Protein backbone atom coordinates (compact mmCIF):
# COMPACT_ATOMS: atom_id res chain seq x y z
CA UNK A 1 0.00 0.00 0.00
CA UNK A 2 1.54 3.28 -1.11
CA UNK A 3 0.18 6.44 0.48
CA UNK A 4 0.06 9.62 -1.54
CA UNK A 5 -0.77 13.02 0.00
CA UNK A 6 -1.62 15.85 -2.39
CA UNK A 7 -1.70 19.60 -1.57
CA UNK A 8 -4.14 21.75 -3.53
CA UNK A 9 -5.25 25.35 -3.16
CA UNK A 10 -8.86 26.35 -2.56
CA UNK A 11 -9.59 26.65 -6.28
CA UNK A 12 -8.17 23.34 -7.44
CA UNK A 13 -9.73 21.61 -4.43
CA UNK A 14 -13.11 22.81 -5.65
CA UNK A 15 -13.82 24.90 -2.56
CA UNK A 16 -14.11 28.22 -4.28
CA UNK A 17 -12.33 31.01 -6.10
CA UNK A 18 -10.61 34.13 -4.83
CA UNK A 19 -13.33 34.65 -2.22
CA UNK A 20 -12.24 31.42 -0.55
CA UNK A 21 -8.52 32.20 -0.55
CA UNK A 22 -8.65 32.50 3.22
CA UNK A 23 -9.65 28.83 3.59
CA UNK A 24 -7.93 27.23 6.58
CA UNK A 25 -5.79 24.18 5.88
CA UNK A 26 -7.83 21.01 5.97
CA UNK A 27 -7.19 17.32 5.47
CA UNK A 28 -9.54 15.44 3.14
CA UNK A 29 -9.37 11.65 3.02
CA UNK A 30 -9.36 10.50 -0.59
CA UNK A 31 -8.42 12.28 -3.82
CA UNK A 32 -9.90 15.59 -4.98
CA UNK A 33 -9.83 17.22 -8.43
CA UNK A 34 -6.50 16.61 -10.12
CA UNK A 35 -5.68 14.08 -7.42
CA UNK A 36 -8.48 11.85 -8.66
CA UNK A 37 -6.85 11.71 -12.09
CA UNK A 38 -3.51 10.71 -10.65
CA UNK A 39 -5.05 8.18 -8.30
CA UNK A 40 -6.82 6.59 -11.22
CA UNK A 41 -3.59 6.32 -13.23
CA UNK A 42 -1.80 4.75 -10.27
CA UNK A 43 -4.56 2.23 -9.49
CA UNK A 44 -2.41 -0.77 -10.35
CA UNK A 45 0.02 0.10 -7.54
CA UNK A 46 -2.34 -0.19 -4.60
CA UNK A 47 -2.50 3.46 -3.66
CA UNK A 48 -4.21 5.15 -0.74
CA UNK A 49 -4.73 8.80 -1.62
CA UNK A 50 -5.51 11.82 0.55
CA UNK A 51 -5.67 15.55 0.00
CA UNK A 52 -4.73 18.75 1.78
CA UNK A 53 -6.66 21.84 0.76
CA UNK A 54 -5.51 25.30 1.78
CA UNK A 55 -6.42 28.83 0.72
CA UNK A 56 -3.56 30.71 -0.95
CA UNK A 57 -4.05 33.74 1.29
CA UNK A 58 -4.37 31.62 4.41
CA UNK A 59 -1.05 29.95 3.68
CA UNK A 60 0.78 33.23 3.23
CA UNK A 61 -0.77 35.03 6.16
CA UNK A 62 -0.60 32.13 8.58
CA UNK A 63 2.29 30.10 7.25
CA UNK A 64 3.39 28.84 10.65
CA UNK A 65 -0.11 27.65 11.55
CA UNK A 66 -0.59 26.08 8.13
CA UNK A 67 2.68 24.18 8.37
CA UNK A 68 1.79 22.95 11.83
CA UNK A 69 -1.60 21.72 10.64
CA UNK A 70 0.07 20.05 7.69
CA UNK A 71 2.57 18.38 10.00
CA UNK A 72 -0.30 16.99 12.03
CA UNK A 73 -1.93 15.65 8.85
CA UNK A 74 1.32 13.94 7.88
CA UNK A 75 1.66 12.44 11.35
CA UNK A 76 -1.80 11.01 11.03
CA UNK A 77 -1.69 9.86 7.41
CA UNK A 78 2.01 8.83 7.17
CA UNK A 79 2.39 9.35 3.40
CA UNK A 80 5.14 7.81 1.27
CA UNK A 81 4.98 10.47 -1.43
CA UNK A 82 3.92 14.14 -1.31
CA UNK A 83 2.50 16.07 -4.26
CA UNK A 84 1.56 19.73 -4.60
CA UNK A 85 -0.05 21.67 -7.47
CA UNK A 86 0.45 21.92 -10.39
CA UNK A 87 0.49 25.69 -9.91
CA UNK A 88 1.13 26.74 -13.54
CA UNK A 89 1.64 30.49 -13.37
CA UNK A 90 -0.34 31.19 -10.22
CA UNK A 91 2.19 33.03 -8.04
CA UNK A 92 0.81 32.60 -4.51
CA UNK A 93 -0.06 28.98 -5.24
CA UNK A 94 3.40 28.31 -6.66
CA UNK A 95 5.06 29.82 -3.61
CA UNK A 96 2.89 27.72 -1.30
CA UNK A 97 3.64 24.55 -3.28
CA UNK A 98 7.37 25.23 -3.19
CA UNK A 99 7.34 25.93 0.54
CA UNK A 100 5.24 22.94 1.56
CA UNK A 101 7.25 20.58 -0.63
CA UNK A 102 10.50 21.89 0.85
CA UNK A 103 9.18 21.54 4.38
CA UNK A 104 7.95 18.01 3.78
CA UNK A 105 11.19 16.90 2.11
CA UNK A 106 13.30 18.39 4.95
CA UNK A 107 11.24 17.06 7.82
CA UNK A 108 9.80 13.82 6.45
CA UNK A 109 12.47 12.88 3.89
CA UNK A 110 9.91 11.46 1.48
CA UNK A 111 9.84 12.41 -2.21
CA UNK A 112 8.13 15.78 -2.72
CA UNK A 113 6.87 16.70 -6.18
CA UNK A 114 5.39 19.93 -7.44
CA UNK A 115 4.89 21.47 -10.87
CA UNK A 116 4.80 24.99 -12.23
CA UNK A 117 5.72 27.23 -15.11
CA UNK A 118 9.31 28.49 -15.22
CA UNK A 119 8.17 32.07 -14.58
CA UNK A 120 6.33 31.20 -11.41
CA UNK A 121 7.88 33.05 -8.41
CA UNK A 122 7.58 29.76 -6.55
CA UNK A 123 10.75 28.65 -8.32
CA UNK A 124 12.63 30.97 -5.92
CA UNK A 125 11.49 29.03 -2.87
CA UNK A 126 12.30 25.47 -3.82
CA UNK A 127 14.44 23.45 -1.44
CA UNK A 128 17.04 20.90 -2.45
CA UNK A 129 15.78 17.54 -3.72
CA UNK A 130 12.24 18.80 -4.46
CA UNK A 131 11.05 17.82 -7.93
CA UNK A 132 9.62 20.77 -9.88
CA UNK A 133 7.93 19.47 -13.01
CA UNK A 134 7.84 21.97 -15.86
CA UNK A 135 4.30 22.86 -16.88
CA UNK A 136 2.58 25.25 -19.26
CA UNK A 137 1.44 28.65 -18.07
CA UNK A 138 -2.22 27.84 -17.51
CA UNK A 139 -4.56 25.04 -16.48
CA UNK A 140 -4.92 24.18 -20.16
CA UNK A 141 -1.74 22.19 -19.54
CA UNK A 142 -3.34 20.20 -16.72
CA UNK A 143 -3.68 16.87 -18.54
CA UNK A 144 -0.09 16.83 -19.75
CA UNK A 145 1.19 17.90 -16.32
CA UNK A 146 -0.70 15.18 -14.46
CA UNK A 147 0.68 12.57 -16.86
CA UNK A 148 4.14 13.68 -15.81
CA UNK A 149 3.33 13.61 -12.10
CA UNK A 150 2.10 10.05 -12.54
CA UNK A 151 5.16 9.00 -14.53
CA UNK A 152 7.51 10.36 -11.86
CA UNK A 153 5.60 8.70 -9.02
CA UNK A 154 5.76 5.39 -10.90
CA UNK A 155 9.49 5.68 -11.42
CA UNK A 156 10.02 6.56 -7.76
CA UNK A 157 7.93 3.57 -6.67
CA UNK A 158 9.95 1.33 -8.97
CA UNK A 159 13.08 2.50 -7.16
CA UNK A 160 14.84 3.10 -10.47
CA UNK A 161 17.30 5.88 -9.70
CA UNK A 162 18.54 6.23 -13.27
CA UNK A 163 15.02 6.52 -14.61
CA UNK A 164 14.24 9.14 -11.97
CA UNK A 165 17.32 11.15 -12.92
CA UNK A 166 16.39 10.89 -16.57
CA UNK A 167 12.94 12.21 -15.70
CA UNK A 168 14.51 15.11 -13.84
CA UNK A 169 16.71 16.00 -16.78
CA UNK A 170 13.86 15.77 -19.26
CA UNK A 171 10.81 17.12 -17.43
CA UNK A 172 11.89 19.14 -14.41
CA UNK A 173 12.69 22.83 -14.33
CA UNK A 174 16.33 23.74 -14.28
CA UNK A 175 16.72 25.89 -11.16
CA UNK A 176 20.46 26.05 -10.46
CA UNK A 177 21.38 26.75 -6.88
CA UNK A 178 24.53 26.11 -4.84
CA UNK A 179 24.54 22.99 -2.71
CA UNK A 180 27.12 20.96 -0.84
CA UNK A 181 28.55 17.89 -2.53
CA UNK A 182 31.41 15.60 -1.64
CA UNK A 183 34.43 16.27 -3.82
CA UNK A 184 37.19 13.74 -4.41
CA UNK A 185 39.88 15.52 -2.44
CA UNK A 186 40.11 17.61 0.75
CA UNK A 187 40.37 21.40 0.57
CA UNK A 188 44.08 21.53 1.45
CA UNK A 189 45.02 19.30 -1.49
CA UNK A 190 42.82 21.19 -3.95
CA UNK A 191 44.12 24.54 -2.67
CA UNK A 192 47.78 23.65 -3.22
CA UNK A 193 46.98 22.15 -6.64
CA UNK A 194 45.10 25.29 -7.67
CA UNK A 195 47.95 27.49 -6.54
CA UNK A 196 50.52 25.49 -8.48
CA UNK A 197 48.32 25.69 -11.58
CA UNK A 198 48.05 29.45 -11.14
CA UNK A 199 51.79 29.85 -10.54
CA UNK A 200 52.58 27.81 -13.64
CA UNK A 201 50.56 30.23 -15.75
CA UNK A 202 48.04 27.56 -16.66
CA UNK A 203 44.31 28.27 -17.01
CA UNK A 204 42.41 27.89 -13.73
CA UNK A 205 38.92 28.17 -12.37
CA UNK A 206 37.62 29.41 -9.05
CA UNK A 207 35.38 27.02 -7.13
CA UNK A 208 33.32 29.94 -5.82
CA UNK A 209 32.04 32.27 -8.53
CA UNK A 210 31.66 35.94 -7.90
CA UNK A 211 27.92 36.58 -7.84
CA UNK A 212 26.71 40.12 -8.43
CA UNK A 213 24.07 41.41 -6.07
CA UNK A 214 20.74 42.43 -7.53
CA UNK A 215 20.91 46.17 -8.15
CA UNK A 216 18.18 48.49 -6.99
CA UNK A 217 17.69 52.06 -8.22
CA UNK A 218 19.18 54.62 -5.86
CA UNK A 219 16.60 57.27 -4.97
CA UNK A 220 17.70 60.88 -4.76
CA UNK A 221 16.08 63.46 -2.53
CA UNK A 222 13.24 65.34 -4.15
CA UNK A 223 12.79 68.72 -2.59
CA UNK A 224 14.66 70.14 0.34
CA UNK A 225 15.80 68.39 3.48
CA UNK A 226 14.25 71.25 5.48
CA UNK A 227 10.83 69.91 4.41
CA UNK A 228 11.67 66.30 5.09
CA UNK A 229 10.97 63.98 8.01
CA UNK A 230 14.01 61.82 8.71
CA UNK A 231 13.87 58.39 10.32
CA UNK A 232 16.49 56.35 12.16
CA UNK A 233 16.79 52.64 11.43
CA UNK A 234 19.30 50.19 12.85
CA UNK A 235 20.48 46.64 12.28
CA UNK A 236 22.21 46.76 15.67
CA UNK A 237 19.51 45.04 17.69
CA UNK A 238 18.83 47.92 20.09
CA UNK A 239 15.61 47.34 22.03
CA UNK A 240 14.01 48.63 25.24
CA UNK A 241 15.55 47.01 28.31
CA UNK A 242 13.98 43.62 28.86
CA UNK A 243 13.52 43.03 25.14
CA UNK A 244 9.70 43.08 25.40
CA UNK A 245 9.12 41.79 21.87
CA UNK A 246 11.81 39.11 22.08
CA UNK A 247 13.99 40.27 19.20
CA UNK A 248 16.50 37.49 18.46
CA UNK A 249 20.18 38.23 19.05
CA UNK A 250 21.03 36.79 15.64
CA UNK A 251 19.06 36.21 12.42
CA UNK A 252 16.21 38.54 13.32
CA UNK A 253 12.97 37.11 12.01
CA UNK A 254 11.11 40.43 12.29
CA UNK A 255 11.58 44.14 12.78
CA UNK A 256 10.15 46.32 15.53
CA UNK A 257 9.63 50.03 16.07
CA UNK A 258 10.06 51.91 19.31
CA UNK A 259 9.04 55.40 20.38
CA UNK A 260 11.55 58.24 20.27
CA UNK A 261 8.95 60.95 20.71
CA UNK A 262 9.49 62.76 24.00
CA UNK A 263 13.11 61.62 24.29
CA UNK A 264 16.12 63.87 23.83
CA UNK A 265 18.60 61.02 24.05
CA UNK A 266 18.76 57.30 24.77
CA UNK A 267 19.68 56.49 28.34
CA UNK A 268 21.84 53.69 29.63
CA UNK A 269 19.77 51.13 31.47
CA UNK A 270 16.64 51.91 29.44
CA UNK A 271 17.84 50.14 26.31
CA UNK A 272 19.98 47.12 25.52
CA UNK A 273 21.47 45.66 22.34
CA UNK A 274 20.46 42.11 21.41
CA UNK A 275 23.19 41.15 18.95
CA UNK A 276 25.82 38.42 18.91
CA UNK A 277 27.78 39.99 16.06
CA UNK A 278 29.42 42.90 17.85
CA UNK A 279 30.57 43.75 21.36
CA UNK A 280 27.45 45.45 22.68
CA UNK A 281 28.94 46.62 25.96
CA UNK A 282 29.89 50.07 24.61
CA UNK A 283 26.48 50.84 23.15
CA UNK A 284 24.79 49.48 26.28
CA UNK A 285 26.67 52.23 28.17
CA UNK A 286 25.21 54.86 25.85
CA UNK A 287 22.65 53.66 23.27
CA UNK A 288 23.10 56.88 21.25
CA UNK A 289 26.26 55.16 20.00
CA UNK A 290 24.10 52.91 17.81
CA UNK A 291 20.92 54.97 17.38
CA UNK A 292 22.17 58.59 17.31
CA UNK A 293 19.12 60.27 18.82
CA UNK A 294 20.93 62.97 20.81
CA UNK A 295 22.80 64.24 17.76
CA UNK A 296 19.68 64.18 15.61
CA UNK A 297 17.76 66.26 18.19
CA UNK A 298 20.48 68.92 18.03
CA UNK A 299 20.18 69.07 14.25
CA UNK A 300 16.38 68.98 14.43
CA UNK A 301 16.40 72.04 16.71
CA UNK A 302 18.76 73.75 14.28
CA UNK A 303 16.13 73.09 11.57
CA UNK A 304 18.58 71.15 9.45
CA UNK A 305 15.58 69.01 8.56
CA UNK A 306 11.90 69.40 9.38
CA UNK A 307 11.34 66.64 11.91
CA UNK A 308 12.71 63.39 13.30
CA UNK A 309 10.27 60.50 12.93
CA UNK A 310 8.51 59.46 16.16
CA UNK A 311 9.84 55.90 15.96
CA UNK A 312 13.10 54.15 15.19
CA UNK A 313 13.09 50.74 13.50
CA UNK A 314 15.28 47.84 14.52
CA UNK A 315 16.23 44.31 13.56
CA UNK A 316 19.27 42.05 14.10
CA UNK A 317 21.17 41.15 10.96
CA UNK A 318 24.09 39.01 12.06
CA UNK A 319 23.96 35.50 10.58
CA UNK A 320 20.80 36.33 8.64
CA UNK A 321 20.02 35.28 5.10
CA UNK A 322 20.06 38.31 2.76
CA UNK A 323 16.67 37.35 1.32
CA UNK A 324 15.11 37.49 4.78
CA UNK A 325 16.64 40.87 5.44
CA UNK A 326 15.28 42.05 2.08
CA UNK A 327 11.82 41.11 3.28
CA UNK A 328 12.37 43.00 6.55
CA UNK A 329 13.79 46.00 4.73
CA UNK A 330 10.79 46.09 2.40
CA UNK A 331 8.46 46.00 5.39
CA UNK A 332 10.24 48.88 7.09
CA UNK A 333 10.33 50.86 3.84
CA UNK A 334 6.62 50.41 3.32
CA UNK A 335 5.82 51.72 6.80
CA UNK A 336 8.19 54.64 6.40
CA UNK A 337 6.80 55.56 2.98
CA UNK A 338 3.24 55.53 4.24
CA UNK A 339 4.29 57.78 7.17
CA UNK A 340 5.67 60.34 4.74
CA UNK A 341 9.33 59.76 5.62
CA UNK A 342 11.65 61.41 3.13
CA UNK A 343 15.05 60.15 4.28
CA UNK A 344 16.65 57.50 6.45
CA UNK A 345 19.86 57.16 8.39
CA UNK A 346 20.65 53.47 8.84
CA UNK A 347 23.32 52.27 11.26
CA UNK A 348 24.76 48.77 10.96
CA UNK A 349 27.51 46.74 12.59
Amino acid at each position, binding site marked *: MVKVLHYLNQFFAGIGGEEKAGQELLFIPGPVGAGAVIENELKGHGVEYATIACGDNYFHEEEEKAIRAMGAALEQFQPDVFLAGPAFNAGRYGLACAKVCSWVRDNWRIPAITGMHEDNPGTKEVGRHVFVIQTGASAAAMRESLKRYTLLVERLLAGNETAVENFRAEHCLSIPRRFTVRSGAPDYVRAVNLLLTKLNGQPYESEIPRVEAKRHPIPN*LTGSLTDATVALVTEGGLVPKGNPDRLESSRGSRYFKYLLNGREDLRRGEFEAMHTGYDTSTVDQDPDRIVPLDAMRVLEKARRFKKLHDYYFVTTGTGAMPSKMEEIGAGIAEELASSGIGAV*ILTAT
Partner: protein
Amino acid sequence: MVLITCLSNVAAQVGIGRIMGGSKFHYPVGQPELPPEEELRWRVGLMEKGLTALETPVQEPKIF
Protein backbone atom coordinates in the same frame (compact mmCIF):
# COMPACT_ATOMS: atom_id res chain seq x y z
CA MET B 1 19.06 56.55 2.73
CA VAL B 2 22.59 56.77 4.03
CA LEU B 3 24.15 53.69 5.61
CA ILE B 4 26.74 54.08 8.38
CA THR B 5 28.81 50.92 8.75
CA CYS B 6 32.39 49.81 9.24
CA LEU B 7 31.95 47.24 6.44
CA SER B 8 31.72 49.93 3.77
CA ASN B 9 33.13 47.80 0.96
CA VAL B 10 30.46 45.15 1.49
CA ALA B 11 27.81 47.89 1.32
CA ALA B 12 29.28 49.09 -1.98
CA GLN B 13 29.23 45.54 -3.36
CA VAL B 14 25.48 45.21 -2.73
CA GLY B 15 24.86 48.55 -4.41
CA ILE B 16 24.03 50.88 -1.50
CA GLY B 17 24.08 54.44 -2.82
CA ARG B 18 25.31 56.45 0.16
CA ILE B 19 27.79 54.89 2.57
CA MET B 20 29.73 56.28 5.52
CA GLY B 21 32.40 54.42 7.47
CA GLY B 22 31.45 55.64 10.93
CA SER B 23 33.61 55.06 13.98
CA LYS B 24 34.43 51.50 14.97
CA PHE B 25 32.75 48.17 14.29
CA HIS B 26 31.31 47.88 17.80
CA TYR B 27 29.97 51.44 17.96
CA PRO B 28 29.42 52.91 14.50
CA VAL B 29 28.28 56.32 15.76
CA GLY B 30 30.18 56.45 19.06
CA GLN B 31 33.52 57.70 20.32
CA PRO B 32 33.74 56.32 23.87
CA GLU B 33 37.31 57.55 24.39
CA LEU B 34 36.05 61.14 24.28
CA PRO B 35 34.39 62.90 27.21
CA PRO B 36 30.56 63.01 26.77
CA GLU B 37 30.20 66.61 25.48
CA GLU B 38 32.96 66.08 22.93
CA GLU B 39 31.49 62.76 21.90
CA LEU B 40 28.13 64.46 21.29
CA ARG B 41 29.81 67.20 19.27
CA TRP B 42 31.56 64.54 17.17
CA ARG B 43 28.29 62.66 16.65
CA VAL B 44 26.50 65.83 15.57
CA GLY B 45 29.29 66.41 13.05
CA LEU B 46 28.87 62.85 11.76
CA MET B 47 25.08 63.22 11.43
CA GLU B 48 25.61 66.55 9.65
CA LYS B 49 27.86 64.69 7.20
CA GLY B 50 25.12 62.08 6.82
CA LEU B 51 22.50 64.71 6.06
CA THR B 52 24.77 66.28 3.46
CA ALA B 53 25.17 62.85 1.91
CA LEU B 54 21.39 62.52 1.79
CA GLU B 55 21.21 65.80 -0.11
CA THR B 56 23.83 64.65 -2.63
CA PRO B 57 22.47 63.00 -5.75
CA VAL B 58 24.29 59.75 -6.60
CA GLN B 59 23.98 57.27 -9.45
CA GLU B 60 26.08 54.46 -7.98
CA PRO B 61 27.63 53.51 -4.63
CA LYS B 62 29.60 56.33 -3.08
CA ILE B 63 31.55 56.30 0.17
CA PHE B 64 31.28 59.71 1.85
